[in-house]
C-alpha cells in the first residue's frame, strides 16, 4: 500500500488555533496516516493511503472546514537554521561560563587572587573559547576564506581576523603568564553577532514562507478545453502534454506548447531578453514563460516541466531583501572602500601605539583589534534590509505583495495617484437584454469571454463557454471577431455617441444594441481617497470611457479630477507629464490597456485577478480588490522610510563616536565587541518596531 505525502499552505488560517482545529479534524479521517500542522508557517503536512484519498479530496475536506488548502511543490528546505542554532548554542554556553570566570578574575585583581589561580581560570577560559572561536566562528571564517580565495574582502573578513588575532594573542599572553587575556572578547563578539544572524535568518525564512504561501494568488490557473468543447479552470500544475488550453491576451504560458490558432503575437522577453514581440503562425512552438499579446489563442501543450512561476516567487522574495534604496546604495559604496580603511585604521592604531607611544606588542595589537571590531560596518549594512524584509512580511500578511525594495521606497513618497476607472476604481455589473436572440446571446458571451476588459468580464454569465478565438481586441475600444461582430464602445460599434451607455454590441449585419452597465466604487476606495486627501496626494481618474460616464463616477466618489476618452498612450502621457515635473506618481490599473501606464509610473499597483501582463508590469499586487489594504501598505511604507533613516543615522553616529574611542585605547576588545554587536542588534530591533497601521 503506497502512501502519499503532500504539504499544503493554509493562507486563510488566521491563528494557530485554526491550524490545530484542521489537524484534529483530519486526524480522525480514516485513510489519513499522519497530520502535522505548522502554525508559524501556516502549513500542514499530510500523509495518506493512496487507495483511500486523492489530493483534491483532501483539499475539499479542508475546504469543508472553511479553509482553502493549496499544495506547495518545492517547499523550500528550512533546516538551514539548525547549523546556526548549534553554533549559537555553543557560543552562548561558553560565553556565559567565560564571563563568569572573567568576572572572578576581575574581582580577584582588585582583591588578592594569586597568580596560580588567575592562570588556572585563564586556562579554563582558553579551553572554553576554543570551540567558539573555531566552530561557532566558522560562520565568519568560511565566507571570509571563500572571498579571500577570490581576492576579495567582505564584511566578515575583519571579524574573522579580529577573532583569530584576539584568540591567538590571548593564548600567547597566557603562555607568557601575563596578567590580562581577552578570551571574553572573542566569545562575547561571536555570541552577539550570532544572535543577529539567527534573527536575520528567521526573518528571511518568514518572507520566503509568506511568498510561497501566496503562490496561488499569482495566477497559476489555466483554462483547459474539455472534450465537449467547454473550458474548465485548473491549476497549471495539473497540465499534461496533449491538453489544449485557452490562453487569453496578457496571460503567460505556463508550459511549452504548439499554437493551434491561426496566429499569435507573443512577448518572449522573459526568455530571450528581446522586448520586440514576435508573430507566430499555426503549429509553431511557444515556450513556457512567453506572454500573449494578442489573444485569446488555443495552445496544445507539448511539454510540462519546472514552472517558471516558482523561480519567480523565490526571486521575488530575495529581490526585496536585497534591494537597497538610494541612501543605502551610497552607504554600501562607502562600505566597499571602507573595509580597506578599517584595516588601515587598525594598522594605524597599532603603529602609533607600538612605535610612538611605546606600548607592548600585545597591547598595541589588541588596540588594533579593538579598532577592527568596532569599525565593522555591520550596522549600516543591516540598516535597510532589516526594515525592508519586515515591511514585506507585514504587507504580505495583509494581502499586498510588494515586489521590490524600490517599490517600497516609492510607495511611501507618492505625490500623485492615477487610477483606472473601469474595473479598478469601480466595480462593474452588466446585464444583457433578456429578449436577445439565442445565437446573438451566444456570440456576445463568446466575445466577452475573449476579453479581459472589466465590462466584458461583467457580462459573462457562463464561465464554461469557450471564448471566441481569432479575434482582435483594440485596447480602449473593443473586441471584434473574424466575421465582423463587435463588442465595445459606442464609437467602435456605431452606437449612439450621446447616450448614457458605455457598452454596445453589434452583430454582423445588425444595428448596435446598448448593454446596461452599473458601476459602483470598489471596496475601500472612499477610504483610499480620504487617506489621499489627508496626506495631500492628488488623485486622478483615467478612463477610456465617455466623458459623461466618467464625470458621473468621479462626482459619485467625491469630485475627483478625471480624464476621459483616454487611449492607453494618453494614459501613459498624463503620467509622464507628472513624472517629468518631478512628482512621484502611482498608477493603479488592471487591464492590458493600462500596461504602458503601469510601466511609466514610479510605482504601479495591480490586482491578482488582473491579466498577467498587468501583474508583470506592476510593482505592487493586491490579492483582493480592496483599496483599504493598499492604504495601509502606503502608510506602512512611510513608517518604513522613517525607520530606515533612523537606522542609517544611528549607524553613522555609532561609527563616528566609537572609532576615536578605540584609537585612543579606551576600548578593550571585549567592550568593542559588545558595542559593535549591540549596534547591529539595535538596528534589527528598531526594524521590528514597524507595524501595520490599523
Amino acid at each position, binding site marked *: 500500500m503506497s502512501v502519499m*505525502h503532500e*504539504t499544503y499552505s493554509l493562507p486563510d488560517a488566521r491563528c*494557530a*488555533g485554526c*491550524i*490545530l482545529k484542521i*489537524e*484534529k479534524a483530519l*486526524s480522525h479521517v480514516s485513510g489519513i*496516516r*499522519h*497530520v*502535522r*500542522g*505548522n*502554525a*508559524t*508557517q501556516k502549513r500542514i*503536512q499530510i*500523509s495518506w493511503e493512496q487507495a483511500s484519498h486523492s489530493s483534491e479530496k483532501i483539499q475539499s475536506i479542508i475546504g469543508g472546514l472553511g479553509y482553502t488548502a493549496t499544495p506547495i511543490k518545492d*517547499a523550500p*528546505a*528550512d*533546516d538551514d*537554521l*539548525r547549523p546556526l*542554532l*548549534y553554533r549559537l*548554542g*555553543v557560543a552562548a*554556553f561558553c560565553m556565559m*561560563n567565560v564571563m563568569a570566570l572573567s568576572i572572578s578574575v576581575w574581582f580577584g585583581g582588585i582583591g588578592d587572587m*594569586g597568580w596560580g*589561580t588567575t592562570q*588556572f*581560570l585563564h586556562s*579554563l577560559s582558553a579551553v*572554553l573559547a576554543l570551540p567558539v572561536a573555531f566552530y561557532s566562528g566558522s560562520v565568519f571564517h568560511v565566507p571570509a576564506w571563500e572571498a579571500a580565495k577570490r581576492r576579495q574582502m567582505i564584511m566578515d573578513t575583519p571579524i574573522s581576523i579580529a577573532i583569530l588575532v584576539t584568540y591567538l594573542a590571548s593564548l600567547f599572553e597566557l603562555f607568557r603568564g601575563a596578567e590580562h587575556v581577552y578570551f571574553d572578547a572573542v566569545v562575547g563578539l561571536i555570541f552577539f553577532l550570532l544572535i543577529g544572524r539567527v534573527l536575520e535568518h528567521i526573518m528571511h525564512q518568514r518572507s520566503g514562507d509568506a511568498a510561497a504561501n501566496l503562490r496561488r494568488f499569482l495566477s497559476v490557473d489555466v483554462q483547459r478545453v474539455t472534450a465537449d468543447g467547454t473550458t474548465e479552470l485548473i491549476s497549471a500544475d495539473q497540465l499534461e502534454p496533449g491538453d489544449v488550453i485557452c490562453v487569453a491576451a496578457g496571460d503567460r504560458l505556463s508550459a511549452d506548447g504548439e499554437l493551434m490558432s491561426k496566429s499569435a503575437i507573443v512577448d518572449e522577453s522573459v526568455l530571450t531578453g528581446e522586448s520586440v514581440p514576435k508573430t507566430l503562425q499555426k503549429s509553431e512552438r511557444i515556450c513556457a514563460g512567453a506572454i500573449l499579446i494578442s489573444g485569446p489563442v488555443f495552445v496544445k501543450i507539448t511539454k510540462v516541466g519546472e514552472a517558471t512561476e516558482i523561480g519567480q516567487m523565490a526571486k521575488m522574495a530575495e529581490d526585496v531583501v536585497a534591494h537597497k534604496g538610494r541612501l543605502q546604495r551610497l552607504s554600501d559604496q562607502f562600505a566597499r572602500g571602507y573595509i580597506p580603511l578599517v584595516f588601515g585604521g587598525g594598522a594605524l592604531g597599532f603603529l602609533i601605539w607600538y612605535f610612538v607611544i611605546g606600548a607592548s606588542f600585545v597591547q598595541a595589537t589588541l588596540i588594533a583589534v579593538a579598532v577592527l571590531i568596532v569599525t565593522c560596518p555591520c550596522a549600516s549594512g543591516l540598516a535597510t534590509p532589516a526594515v525592508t524584509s519586515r515591511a514585506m512580511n507585514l504587507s504580505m500578511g495583509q494581502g499586498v505583495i510588494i515586489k521590490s525594495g524600490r517599490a517600497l521606497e516609492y510607495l511611501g513618497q507618492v505625490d500623485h495617484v492615477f487610477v483606472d476607472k473601469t474595473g479598478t476604481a469601480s466595480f462593474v455589473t452588466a446585464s444583457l437584454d433578456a429578449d436577445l436572440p439565442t445565437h446573438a446571446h451566444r456570440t456576445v458571451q463568446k466575445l466577452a469571454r475573449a476579453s479581459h476588459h472589466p465590462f466584458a468580464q461583467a457580462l459573462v454569465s457562463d464561465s464554461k463557454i469557450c471564448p471566441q478565438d481569432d479575434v482582435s481586441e483594440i485596447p480602449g475600444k473593443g473586441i471584434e471577431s473574424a466575421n465582423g461582430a463587435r463588442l465595445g464602445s459606442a464609437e467602435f460599434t456605431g452606437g449612439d455617441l450621446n447616450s448614457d451607455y458605455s457598452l454596445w454590441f453589434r452583430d454582423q449585419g445588425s444595428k448596435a444594441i446598448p448593454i446596461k452597465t452599473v458601476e459602483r466604487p470598489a471596496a475601500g476606495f472612499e477610504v483610499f481617497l480620504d487617506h489621499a486627501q489627508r496626506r495631500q496626494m492628488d488623485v486622478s481618474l483615467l478612463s477610456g470611457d465617455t466623458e459623461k460616464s466618467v464625470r458621473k463616477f468621479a462626482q459619485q466618489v467625491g469630485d475627483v479630477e478625471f480624464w476621459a476618452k483616454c487611449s492607453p498612450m494618453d494614459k501613459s502621457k498624463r503620467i509622464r507629464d507628472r513624472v517629468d515635473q518631478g512628482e512621484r506618481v502611482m498608477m493603479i490599473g488592471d487591464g492590458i490597456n493600462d500596461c504602458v501606464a503601469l510601466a511609466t509610473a514610479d510605482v504601479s499597483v495591480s490586482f491578482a485577478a488582473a491579466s498577467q501582463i498587468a501583474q508583470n508590469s506592476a510593482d505592487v499586487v493586491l490579492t483582493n480588490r480592496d483599496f483599504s489594504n493598499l492604504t495601509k501598505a502606503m502608510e506602512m511604507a512611510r513608517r518604513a522610510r522613517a525607520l530606515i533613516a533612523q537606522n542609517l543615522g544611528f549607524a553613522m553616529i555609532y561609527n563616528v563616536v566609537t572609532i576615536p574611542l578605540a584609537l585612543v585605547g579606551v576600548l578593550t576588545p571585549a567592550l568593542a565587541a559588545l558595542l559593535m554587536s549591540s549596534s547591529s542588534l539595535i538596528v534589527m530591533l528598531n526594524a521590528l518596531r514597524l507595524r501595520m497601521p490599523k
Partner: protein
Amino acid sequence: MNAILYLLPISLLLAVISLIAFFWTVRRNQYQDLDGDCLRALVDEDLPLVRNTVDGK
C-alpha cells in the same frame, strides 16, 4: 583553594550536559513551530508525534 581545581571542571562538565540537551532539542526540530506548539499544550488530545520523513526533518 585546591578544591576549585577540580570543582570548576566538574561543574563545567555538568553544564555541558545542558548544552547537549539543547542540541537534542534543535535536532528534534522543536524550534520550528513555536506558535503552534504553545497552543498544543492547551489541546486535550494527544496526537502521536510521527516524524515527517518526506523532507528528512
